[in-house]
């Protein structure tokens, strides 16, 4: 609740910040202060069980501990994102403050989604997240790729919103309420209307989380958008979409789990296969990361498939692991001259600490033990096994994980085992280096003690 208010207010403040803050650095700092404030308030709410500003939402919004932990993870990721990539936001366009404002508005949407208890709030939250994203995708206005990404994202995003609305309408027609609890109560038996609504919502949510076969927008949009916003989209926004997916299917459709889990399993399988296999082919790190985000979505789909305790706990861990790691890699990538793998050549020689941090991030993405990514994947697999019966899904998942090693390690190979042909002029500030190292330490700490997050829930 606090997060909604603070982010909205901070968004408005950011819009005007351009008038009284002159240097980009102070704008950047101002944004970081806002995030820190949000984190502090969310932590307060988590610890005390009460928000600072209590507003009666008539049951439309409700923040459980789970939601708050989720929100904190997202906010911490955003903080890291700001620290690591803030300078790139500055570089994207002249209207820096506006872009920051949009990010804060997106955070508002995220906070709404975190607490939604009604389909209305879900719809609104997702739209508040999506609409600024269309803009951010196209924020590099002079770049045709960015334009194209924005339009594609916009058209397909609206289309999927349409599908979702149709689904919501059908569900409403059957149940007569938008409240998740009411829907759950009315979901004792599967009527054709519910079935159709559920499928349409499944399709549109799959689109939002870029699960196959609704993933096609992902590579194009991620590739075309300014790298700094790709980073945001592929981590924080994706986490939110998954959170919404899981919460919706757990709270509203949980009773009919048996009826849709096979379908979700198929989606997860397709996502894993397509994401991992196609990523193998990519020559551009950015596009590779786009496919990798599809591949990771395949793993996260497993939690939607299982929706048990492991799935829910693990998904939060996954968000943290995935977001931290991806933000780190993208932060370095956005400073590179081009996005080809070769631009990473010899990084370990010129910038050993940066290379080490990227290495740890990549290991985490690949799910190597003692990084956060391992336990994240571990929980997904465990959740599926706990659910029973779908060993083939687990086996495919782990084999896909092994395939993912292939493309992540290509970057590692470039950094550590290849020499750069010419001296790369990329300069990294000490501040950035320390931030990267911090990020890496965070990943390792979570890899050794995942209970730091798990015990919160």
């Amino acid at each position, binding site marked *: 609740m606090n997060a*909604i208010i603070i982010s*909205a207010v901070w*968004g*408005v403040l950011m*819009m005007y910040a351009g008038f009284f803050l002159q240097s980009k650095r102070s704008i950047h700092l101002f944004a970081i202060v806002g995030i820190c404030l949000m984190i502090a308030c969310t932590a307060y709410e988590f610890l005390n069980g009460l928000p600072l500003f209590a*507003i009666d*939402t*008539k049951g*439309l*919004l409700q923040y459980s501990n789970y939601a708050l932990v989720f929100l904190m993870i997202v906010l911490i990721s955003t903080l890291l994102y700001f620290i690591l990539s803030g300078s790139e936001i500055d570089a994207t*366009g*002249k*209207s820096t403050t*506006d*872009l920051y*404002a*949009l990010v804060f*508005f*997106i955070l*508002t*949407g995220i906070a*709404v989604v975190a607490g939604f208890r009604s389909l*209305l*709030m879900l719809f*609104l939250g997702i*739209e*508040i997240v999506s*609409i*600024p994203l*269309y*803009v951010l995708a*196209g*924020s590099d*206005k*002079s*770049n*045709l*790729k960015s334009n194209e990404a*924005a339009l594609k994202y916009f058209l397909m995003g609206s289309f999927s919103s349409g599908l979702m609305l149709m689904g919501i309408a*059908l569900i409403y*027609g*059957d149940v007569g309420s938008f409240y998740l609890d009411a829907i759950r109560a009315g979901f004792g038996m599967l*009527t*054709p*209307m519910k*079935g*159709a609504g559920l499928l349409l919502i499944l399709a549109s949510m799959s689109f939002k989380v870029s699960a196959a076969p609704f993933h096609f927008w992902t590579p194009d949009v991620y590739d075309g958008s300014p790298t700094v916003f790709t980073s945001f989209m592929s981590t924080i926004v994706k986490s939110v979409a998954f959170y919404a997916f899981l919460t919706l299917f757990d709270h509203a459709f949980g009773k009919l789990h048996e009826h849709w889990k096979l379908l979700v399993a198929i989606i997860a399988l397709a996502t894993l296969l397509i994401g991992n296999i196609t990523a193998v082919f990519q020559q551009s790190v950015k596009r590779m990361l786009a496919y990798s985000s599809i591949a990771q979505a395949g793993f996260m789909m497993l939690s939607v498939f299982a929706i048990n305790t492991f799935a829910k706990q693990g998904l939060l861990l996954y968000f943290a692991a995935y977001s931290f790691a991806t933000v780190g890699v993208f932060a370095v990538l956005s400073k590179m001259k081009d996005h080809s793998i070769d631009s990473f050549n010899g990084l370990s020689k010129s910038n050993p600490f940066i290379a080490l941090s990227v290495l740890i991030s990549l290991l985490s993405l690949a799910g190597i033990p003692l990084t956060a990514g391992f336990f994240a994947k571990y929980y997904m697999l465990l959740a599926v096994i706990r659910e029973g019966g779908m060993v083939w899904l687990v086996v495919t998942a782990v084999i896909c994980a092994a395939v993912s090693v292939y493309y992540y390690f290509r970057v590692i190979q470039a950094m550590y085992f290849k020499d750069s042909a010419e001296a790369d002029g990329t300069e990294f500030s000490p501040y950035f280096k320390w931030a990267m190292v911090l990020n890496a330490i965070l990943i390792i700490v979570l890899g050794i003690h995942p209970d730091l997050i798990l015990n919160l829930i």
Partner: protein
Amino acid sequence: MPITEILFWALSAAAILAALLVIFSKNPVHSVLWLIVVFFAISGHYVLLNAQFLAIVNMIVYAGAIMVLFLFVIMLMNMNAEQEPNKSKWMKLAGIISGGSLMLILVASLKNSTAIAGGQDAGIGLIQQLGRTLFSDYVVPFEISSILFLSAMVGAIILGKKEKNMNETNFSKF
């Protein structure tokens, strides 16, 4: 046949016909106009369903504001029918077939629903009733939607603002 039923069929026919014309008109301007017809027909349906407030809003917001915006943009771009080259035949065919089969499947899967819309009068569609609910139970989403508008506004400004370095040479960025 009661008058409402006649009206229902007439409005439905108009809506579907107009919708088909929207997608099959070559000229975007015609599409816009036909879409306005659809909206009017739908507004008619709202009235039939005792949702008078929504009927009005639909006409004002959709037919009035949004469609005018569309028209404005189309005019701005000076589009006419010849400008749009045909999509490949196969693509079109595939689109129609899949759209049609989706419809068939939806209809087939929904045809068992037998609930009947009752004929009793209710005041929920009136502005008074809706307004009260909106500002009591739904005030939070209402406020939040302001953020939505705000962000849309900021976004439109960001995208619409002309930047100095934009020129015609940016094709080189391909």
